[in-house]
């Protein structure tokens, strides 16, 4: 299954990076989201895939026994998902506002907006 996911990850990376290099700022944000998915899946897959064995201790037991999914990458990704949401929420509002102010969506047109005039 890692083989299949490897191609999904590659596709997500390629799409994310391609979109981030566009001049449209909306595409930049979408590309960033795709890149986030790619990175999460990368960490997840490199931590090895296990079917049907979540790292949850059974009732009456004191620790995980047998085969179980690695909890460390999962904890990392959980953090990344939430932070990723924070970033994209902020970015979405930011581009909305910047579009209202600057009146363009083209990043190349936005190079000197530091001055107020």
């Amino acid at each position: 299954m890692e083989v299949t996911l490897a191609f999904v990850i590659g596709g997500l990376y390629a799409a994310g990076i391609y979109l981030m290099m566009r001049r449209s700022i909306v595409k930049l944000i979408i590309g960033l989201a795709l890149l986030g998915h790619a990175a999460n899946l990368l960490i997840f897959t490199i931590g090895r895939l296990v079917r049907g064995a979540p790292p949850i201790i059974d009732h009456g037991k004191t620790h995980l026994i047998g085969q179980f999914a690695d909890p460390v990458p999962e904890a990392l990704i959980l953090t990344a998902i939430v932070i990723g949401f924070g970033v994209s929420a902020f970015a979405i509002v930011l581009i909305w506002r910047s579009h209202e102010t600057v009146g363009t969506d083209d990043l190349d047109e936005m190079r000197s907006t530091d001055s107020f005039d």
Partner: protein
Amino acid sequence: MLLAVVSGFAAALFAPFIHRRLPRYSGWLFATLPAGLFVYFVSFSGRIAEAEPPRFAYTWLGSLGIDLTFHVDGLSLLFALLIAAIGALVIVYSGSYLAGHAEQGIFFSHMLAFMASMLGLVLADNAIVLFIFWELTSLSSYFLIGFDHRRAGARHAALQALLVTGLGGLALLAGLILMGSVFGTLEISQWMLTGDAIRFHVLYLPIVLLIAGAAFTKSAQIPFHFWLPNAMEAPAPVSTYLHSATMVKAGIYLLARLNPVLGDTVMWSALVTTFGAATMVTGAYLALVHVDLKRILAYTTISALGMMTMLLGIGTPIAIQACVVFLLAHALYKGALFLVAGAIDHATGVRDATRLGGLFGQMPVVAIAGLVAALSSAGVPPHLGFVGKELVYQALSEHLLNAILLGAMLLTSISFVAVAGVVGYRPFFEGMRDVAREPHPPGLSLCLGPALLAALGLIIGVAPGLVEHWLVAPAASAIGFQPVAVELALWHGFHYNLLLTLFAFATGMFVYSRWDGFRAVCTSLDASASFGPARGYDLLLTATSAAARATTRILQSGHLHFYLLTIVVTAIALIGGSLLTQHLPLGVSRWSDVRIHEFVLAVLVLAATVLVVRARKLITAVVSLGVVGYGVALFFLFFSAPDLAMTQFAIESLSVLLLVLVLFRLPEIERYSRTSERVRDAVPALIFGGLMTILVLTVTALSREARLAPFFAEHSYPDAKGMNVVNVILVDFRGLDTMGEITVLSIAAIGVFSLLKLFLKGKRESEGNP
């Protein structure tokens, strides 16, 4: 000992405040510190003459092998005494030289800090500590040279000195670290015991070049000599202290200190002797070309430093002895002459030797001090300068290359005699004068320094026995790392060296009498002003900043996609490079374990991804992005990560909701770029994606050893009372991380809120107020 070194820094901290309270007497007050240190160091003299040099160790960065270790052998003691004694006199002198200057307190502060750095430098036993103090002297001298910071010339000179000596400092650090790696310790006193090991080491050549580079920049040897005359922008006390007596001799100190370890090879002698001799002659020549008193003195200082370097390169016991005696003599007479030049400048406002004359009447004490010091520098008996110069001749006549070196030394002596006349005789005793204002007689504190230094040079010259056993012999022994018996005498009996001295006197006086004509000839011949090391420095500086500007313009283009392209291409090169060199198996044979629903999901996610990229409508892109997100969540669910799946579902729903909410306000997707640009971006993006696929394949094909998972599996319930291990990690084992995450989210929320809210207010104001 630590207190002795650090006290200067402490005093520097409080100097401006003390000076504000006691502006009139602060010079005398601050001078008590170096005076006290002088007494403290004199107390070491008895112990050093006996045997083991005392060593002081204070724990600092023990794990790195760096402790604050100091030791006092003859060489350190000689320098420490010079630093403390001349420091005291110079500080008293600057009390009245800079009297009334608005920043005099800060000047004292820099001066004391410099003194402390210099003491630390000559006392340090640990190589890294030595380096730190070396850099501190460069830094504090930067402030001192640039003291008159309102003048561009002073700022330029200060920066030049800092850059040249700073470059040497980097070479020093590299050289010392290499030596430390060869010896396995950073304690210099330990190096001495195993010195032979390094001479046959493969790193010997780079080490010698680096150390010599450091010493040559600091001690203004050719081709780095140009910073020293320019540093004459500094006030006279600074020139006295830094550029004649102490700091420029730090390079000499370094060569002398490492002589037992690095010296005594053909390589070392050839390098150090050649550069020293070349510097000596060049300095002696340039001293005759200039008319500014301080510049003349600066060039003779360069010449003298070259002489000392040459003597260290020769490295015979008599040469080392000559070096020590000449170092002492030079510090005394050159210190005095710089102070005299400063006093003249202070009284008349003129430093041009051609315009000065007949000042004896106004300043008899300074005049006599200047004359005595000048006679010492010319090597006239019975001054210490004569004793030193005789030793130099003796050392050179023993050397193999004596013909060339003796000739160079003779030329230098002639120049020194002529310069002595220009600096020590002409301003006071010759008739002409072209000074705008009436000179005012200097006060006690301006006379004390030059008078005392000049007198010392005379007294020690008459009775060299005063210093030979407790000062000169231990210093020479430390440089040679073997006991040296020193017998100094004014009169060696009739020797053919004496003929050379007499010849130098006669020729030097002739050059002095024809000085104006000589200068005119030299200036017409002299092309060094238009091209030379100084010009090279300027070109290098301009080129460096031009290169920096060009690099910045290329790298910081202001185009986001260019930055991304740089990052992606770099990443491709690094990842691709290491994947190519590693030759790891891909393990594509693992196709078989895929299940049908997983495969369908993978195809679906990839299709949605393509759709996101190709979408012409924003709504299509947003919906497809949602599909990708939910697909990723399903992957989490399939592979034993229910927490991730739940979070991803929730977040994805929120994101899509947010996007849809602002969708009608967002600009529609537009195509700005041409097809060629899209291809330019698509190629690296696809390559990068492909590399990531290969990366995942190779990594997952390897066997993996999970070290953390068993720990959490073992401890989650007993220690944290939680059944869900992922949750336990987040809220307990790595609770602080989660705390940080919450903070980040709060900040993002505040950001979103303020963008939505505060901006509207501003807009309303601007709408109401067009």
